[in-house]
């Protein structure tokens, strides 16, 4: 789903940046960041062809990263995406995926080749593993970008 310039910007909606406000104008000084932050979200969470990583798993993984990173607003966004999708079945595949997601989110320096092998043994192809890692990495980025923007919003409000 390519991002159209007319569709609402997720980060601004979640943080509560009013259209036309000084912070909306600040973000507009970096149009490529706005465009490709939203674009990354769209291709990772709602790809036209999800390959071997179904849309439900993608939304669940993103929700988990937002929760582990302590961002309730983004967690709620991904939970609501998940609610409109087929819920991933609870099984060993999902356990393996979520264990890896937690490691990459909270302790990325502890990953080992056998963790990639475990994902392959659970049926994920190289493209699926890269997409899974990109989702964890993207939400880790998004949480910090959102917090940075929120601080500026709060500072203006005092």
């Amino acid at each position: 789903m390519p991002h159209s310039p007319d569709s609402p910007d997720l980060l601004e909606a979640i943080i509560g940046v009013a259209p036309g406000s000084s912070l909306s104008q600040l973000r507009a000084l970096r149009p490529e960041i706005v465009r490709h932050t939203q674009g990354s979200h769209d291709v990772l969470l709602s790809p036209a062809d999800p390959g071997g990583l179904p849309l439900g798993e993608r939304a669940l993984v993103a929700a988990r990263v937002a929760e582990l990173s302590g961002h309730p607003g983004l967690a709620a966004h991904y939970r609501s995406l998940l609610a409109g999708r087929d819920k991933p079945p609870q099984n060993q595949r999902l356990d393996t995926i979520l264990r890896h997601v937690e490691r990459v989110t909270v302790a990325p320096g502890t990953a080992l080749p056998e963790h990639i092998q475990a994902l392959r043994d659970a049926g994920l192809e190289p493209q699926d593993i890269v997409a899974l890692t990109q989702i964890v990495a993207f939400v880790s980025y998004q949480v910090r970008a959102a917090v940075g923007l929120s601080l500026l919003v709060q500072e203006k409000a005092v």
Partner: protein
Amino acid sequence: MTTKRFTLEAVEWAPWLPPVTPETATPAQRTALEASPQANSAYFRTLANDVDSLAERSPLFHAVMYVPRGLKRAERELATVIVSIINGCVYCSSVHARRFVELTKQPEIIRALYAQGVDTPLEPRLRAIVDYAAKLTRAPAAMTVADLTPLRAVGMDDLEIHDLSNAVAMFANANRLMQTLGEPIVPEEPKPAA
């Protein structure tokens, strides 16, 4: 677990998944690789396994690190080195520490950060940048508006702070890709002269 050896020398990277090769690349993968900073690197060829996310990430990374005005490039590079030290990313810290040194000619700042950690004494503006980058990396949920006060005290404006947050955020991303899809190959410790 062995201690990580952060370095100012060039570090290689070995993937844990088969990278896309020039012979196997689809036209879309070839286009995305040509738009990435180094089309031939094993890292970008590994990311090209999921081509649509690579095609969005390369222009995002470029805008965060290199778009003019706002936070100085050297200060963006410093922020990414701090994030990479905290997350343990030897490869990312090597690349961006060398960029910082190219821009500032101040390798001693990097050596102090490597040797003593991110709390090593620094001049006030760098101290404020480093503290903000460290806390946003470790504990994004604990950030409050008071964390902006030291940045304002050294004269930073909204655009500089926005750029700083985005650079920190971008390396939350880069460190996770780099450390969990492969591993750094660090050159041997130089032998003492005979």
